[in-house]
């Protein structure tokens, strides 16, 4: 989210997977798309059949590599270096799409003279070695502003100024030559050139390339910066906002985009509104709003800078509308101008409550209880052993799941845990309904909101998550109804009208879509949001999904298909049903499509508005040659070629003047654990190291020979996490295994199928070895780098059991996104089993589905096998 949001404005995938069929080249990097997103992967295959090239850059030769035309194996944790090599090649060979870059990116913008990047250390100007943070006063990463009150950046459209972003980029990436990149990544120098040429030749006026990534980017210490590098590459090639182009941020679950929009994150309100901090600068609503979107207190006392302009220019100037509408949705009649619409009732950030720090707080008994909704942290979280230990430090734990997972059985079934009698945690397992057993909407990778109806009644006492939460809310409201304490006001005043006893998910969608408080009329467009309390809206981006009580657009199915192969009337995509974000970029400065083949939107001079194959993600009547008047505010301040109107200058940011704490441009640092020294800079790893301090969370020093192998973890397509409870899936992948190459196997004396023990600085697990030619050793800085691929879906509960890969991973994270950096760490591998193998007992297989009665209306021949009666 932070990487894409900072570069473009929205933390979301830009093009629907269906549009990948229109690509001329698809670069899948940091993703195993065929295995993790098999349904969406149909579209790259369609593109391939139409002549496109599929490139897969990944440490392993996976099922995605099998479908790709080119596979390049790189060392885990070096995606950024590889992308930097591609960027350098594009810049040095002059293959960037110059017209596009000039109009839609900040390439021409001139930076302040005190901006600097130290090529020896790998640190930017502003670095304070004592605090190990960037001091940004004066903000040397800012644009160089024209004199005057308007704070407009100076530009050089010739791109010759040495301080313009374009030239800064060239210098920044100059050292990422194919040889240097290849030596870092473990590929061949020619591979860098090959991939760069494939992308460059398939980008431009008449051709577009797509870049798809997933957790192979995000779960690294430099995750957001790696995504930034991908953004820079795609911007230079002119692929953003165009059919067949874009960046496909593949989401891990069906509804991860929805869970990000209506967030489960600790530091943002719905739809990316910053959660206020408990600081004097944000004590009142007015003070908070004056700071604007960029006022995030992470900036730590910076009082001057370009970020302040976000309160005035671009889409974020509507923050007051967004927040007040949200407060009205949450607190209803109790939210009045007199009480700041209940601003005081919002929780304020008092410290780090990101995912991993929660478990530290549990271990220190600072948190006494927890709810786990559809989460099995005992297997899926980094340093899962520590997380399970943290769960056992709670007084109470509520797990809502389909099965009794590792997390739910943590008090008695963990083979590494203490005796059950010594665990004081009271665990409540609440049975929930599966996706087919409940109605509601999901928001998928392409921001598409789709409604699904309950197909069958949930068994037994299972209820939907919504029903459980709704019930909990009702009970809490009852408990606090009589309270007069001010601290209980947030609950007393909370609106909670989603149905009598059983909640109606459409009432939730109605609140997300928003309505006029006075009339109850549903909102149609974001322009109706208001800061005077006349409108309630729980999710500004979802305005328009439910424009009338009888028109839930998420329910739409099928509909006409357009020339791009996109069903633009199927479901509803935010924002405003635009299927391709930043689609202004699909036309040139004059509003003409770049080419007939790649046309999406164009300016209809006669009609005086934009038209084409998608809903314009900008004011439909804004002329392409619009120039804002001096002092213009809000969206009006964005020029006619400003495709990225969430940014105050309307440009995509090749150089990010603010938004990320560890640098305005991507820099390759080694992972927190690496067998190699950083060959490019003296800073070994991300300078803003965020590692949970705990004796159980040791980090191996750089180039420590005790753990000489590079490990990465991943899912198999056959399982999610708790699917090991399903015999049909367990038979497909019954066993925990690690994948190693033949060379490493020979060196460690391991044969295919043998037991091996894999250890890291945190612990050790045992697994079976799958020795395969698909894992090749890589040559990094002249040394062999062996990669150990560890399947991370196994645990001690289920019909298929095995040690958990996450018992090896570390609680370390990216400073920007607070996402764990679990995709690369160091390990050692030996043949054999643990000295004391853990006793893992699979659950008994669920009996065969024998049914005594034949299926009506079906002849004997076609009766399902499971319904054959014995002996007949």
């Amino acid at each position: 989210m932070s990487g894409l949001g900072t570069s473009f404005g929205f933390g979301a995938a830009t093009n629907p997977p269906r549009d990948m069929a229109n690509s001329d080249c698809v670069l899948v990097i940091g993703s195993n798309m065929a295995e993790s997103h098999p349904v969406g992967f149909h579209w790259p295959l369609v593109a391939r059949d139409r002549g496109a090239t599929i490139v897969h850059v990944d440490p392993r030769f996976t099922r995605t590599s099998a479908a790709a035309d080119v596979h390049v194996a790189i060392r885990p944790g070096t995606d950024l270096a590889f992308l930097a090599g591609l960027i350098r090649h594009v810049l040095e060979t002059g293959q960037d799409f110059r017209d596009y870059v000039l109009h839609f990116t900040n390439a021409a913008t001139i930076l302040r003279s005190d901006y600097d990047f130290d090529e020896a250390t790998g640190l930017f100007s502003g670095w304070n070695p004592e605090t190990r943070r960037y001091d940004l006063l004066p903000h040397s990463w800012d644009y160089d502003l024209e004199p005057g009150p308007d704070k407009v950046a100076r530009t050089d459209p010739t791109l010759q100024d040495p301080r313009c972003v374009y030239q800064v980029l060239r210098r920044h990436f100059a050292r990422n030559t194919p040889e240097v990149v290849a030596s870092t990544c473990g590929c061949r120098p020619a591979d860098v050139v090959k991939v760069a040429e494939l992308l460059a030749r398939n980008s431009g006026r008449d051709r577009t390339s797509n870049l798809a990534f997933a957790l192979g980017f995000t779960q690294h210490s430099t995750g957001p910066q790696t995504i930034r590098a991908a953004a820079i590459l795609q911007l230079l090639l002119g692929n953003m906002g165009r059919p067949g182009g874009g960046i496909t941020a593949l989401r891990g679950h069906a509804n991860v985009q929805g869970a990000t929009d209506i967030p489960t994150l600790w530091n943002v309100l719905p739809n990316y509104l910053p959660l206020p901090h408990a600081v004097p600068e944000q004590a009142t609503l007015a003070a908070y709003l004056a700071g604007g979107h960029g006022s995030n207190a992470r900036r730590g006392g910076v009082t001057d800078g370009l970020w302040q302009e976000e309160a005035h220019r671009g889409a974020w100037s509507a923050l007051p509308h967004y927040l007040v509408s949200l407060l009205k949705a949450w607190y209803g009649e109790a939210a009045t101008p007199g009480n700041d619409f209940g601003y005081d009732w919002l929780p304020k950030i008092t410290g780090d409550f990101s995912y991993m720090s929660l478990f530290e707080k549990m271990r220190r008994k600072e948190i006494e209880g927890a709810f786990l909704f559809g989460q099995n942290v005992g297997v899926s979280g980094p340093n899962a052993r520590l997380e399970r230990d943290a769960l056992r430090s709670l007084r109470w734990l509520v797990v809502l799941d389909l099965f009794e997972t590792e997390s739910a059985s943590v008090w008695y079934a963990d083979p590494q845990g203490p005796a059950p009698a010594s665990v004081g945690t009271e665990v409540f397992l609440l049975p929930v309904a599966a996706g087919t057993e409940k109605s509601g909407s999901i928001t998928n990778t392409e921001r598409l909101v789709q409604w699904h109806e309950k197909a069958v009644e949930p068994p037994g006492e299972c209820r939907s998550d919504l029903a459980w939460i709704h019930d909990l809310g009702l009970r809490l409201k009852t408990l606090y109804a009589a309270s007069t304490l001010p601290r209980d006001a947030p609950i007393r005043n909370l609106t909670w009208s989603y149905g009598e006893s059983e909640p109606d998910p459409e009432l939730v969608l109605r609140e997300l879509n928003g309505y006029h408080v006075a009339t109850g009329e549903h909102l149609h467009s974001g322009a109706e949001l208001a800061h005077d309390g006349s409108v309630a809206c729980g999710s500004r981006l979802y305005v328009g999904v439910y424009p009338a009580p009888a028109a839930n657009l998420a329910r739409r199915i099928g509909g006409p298909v357009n020339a791009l192969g996109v069903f633009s009337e199927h479901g509803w995509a935010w924002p405003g049903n635009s299927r391709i974000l930043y689609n202004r970029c699909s036309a040139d400065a004059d509003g003409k499509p770049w080419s007939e083949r790649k046309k999406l939107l164009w300016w209809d001079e006669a009609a005086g508005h934009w038209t084409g194959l998608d809903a314009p993600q900008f004011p439909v009547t804004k002329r392409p040659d619009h120039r804002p008047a001096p002092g213009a505010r809000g969206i009006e301040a964005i020029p006619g070629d400003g495709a990225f109107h969430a940014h105050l200058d309307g440009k995509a940011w090749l150089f990010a003047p603010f938004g990320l704490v560890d640098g305005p441009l991507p820099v390759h640092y080694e992972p927190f654990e690496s067998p190699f020294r950083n060959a490019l800079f003296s800073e070994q790893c991300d300078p803003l190291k965020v590692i949970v301090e705990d004796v159980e969370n040791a980090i191996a020093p750089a180039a420590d020979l005790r753990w000489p192998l590079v490990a990465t973890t991943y899912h198999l397509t056959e399982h999610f996490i708790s699917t090991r409870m399903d015999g049909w899936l367990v038979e497909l992948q019954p066993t925990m295994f690690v994948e190693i190459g033949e060379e490493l196997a020979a060196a460690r004396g391991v044969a295919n199928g043998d037991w091996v023990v894999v250890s890291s600085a945190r612990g050790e697990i045992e697994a079976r070895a799958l020795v395969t030619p698909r894992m090749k050793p890589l040559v990094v800085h002249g040394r062999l780098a062996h990669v150990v691929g560890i399947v991370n879906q196994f645990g001690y509960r289920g019909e298929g059991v095995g040690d958990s890969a996450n018992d090896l991973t570390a609680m370390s994270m990216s400073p920007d996104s607070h996402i764990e950096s679990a995709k690369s760490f160091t390990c050692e591998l030996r043949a054999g089993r643990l000295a004391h193998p853990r006793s893992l007992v699979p659950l008994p297989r669920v009996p065969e589905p024998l049914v005594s009665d034949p299926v009506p209306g079906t002849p004997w021949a076609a009766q399902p096998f499971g319904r054959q009666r014995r002996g007949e």
Partner: protein
Amino acid sequence: MTAPRSAPVGYGDTVGSHPSPWEGEVPVLDVFLHDVGIGVFLVATVGALVAPGTMTPLLPIAWPLSLAMVGIDMLLLLVDLGDWTRFFHMFRVFKPGTPMSLGVWSLSGFLLALTGAATWGALALVGLAPAAPGPAVLGLAVLALVLAIPASIYKGAVFTITSQPGWRDARWTAGALSVSSVLLGIAILGVQARLLGAPAAVLLWKVAPALLLLDAVLFAAWMRGARPAMLERLSPERRVAEGLFQWGARGAALALLLLGQPTLFAVVTLSLLVSVPAYVARRTFLSLPHLPRLVP
């Protein structure tokens, strides 16, 4: 240190069919008893038709004996099905192009006719029927004789009309099994005749060498077809041992027939020299699809 290995490239080793479920001793015994039973009937009945004076005295025992053998064979088949009540489904269709269907119908008809003839034989033995079969009984025997032809040859085709290694290529299986069946009939009836002290013993001893030679020719043709699978699945030692045994037994039988007289010892020895190799050959042949391929 163990040499590394990865999954073998491709499924080249697994091209082909599932191994037939006809595995183990029951199918071997089944084929053997089937051939013995039909052989005994054929030799006795044909003999009674062409040399009634000599051969008719054997019928009262030969027919019930044949019935018993084929009957046991049928019972074994039913047992092998797992659920014998399903057997009647076989009578839903008559598909002469399907060896199993042809066999079930012809064998059932044969058994029905033979039951009539054998009933006379059993009654004649205890003196409740005339010593010589009447026209009705002979009619039934001729009907059984006609049905015995498909009933005899289907058995080999059941194995060759499959996709099983060894079986599918042994084109002469049905011919070899049928000829072997007649030879088996001669050997078994020879023992019976000797025990009864009937002159048929001498006659059978005299005709045996010709059948032994014919059997040897067809046996060679049969094994030639199965040879590729045997090379693939039988160890060289076993191939040599079985070859020596098969041809040695045949040589010994021929020598005995040419040089010896049909004493009790000689006819019993002959029956063993004929039936043991016949059983072993069937056993080896039937096991071919279930044996693992030898590692080259």
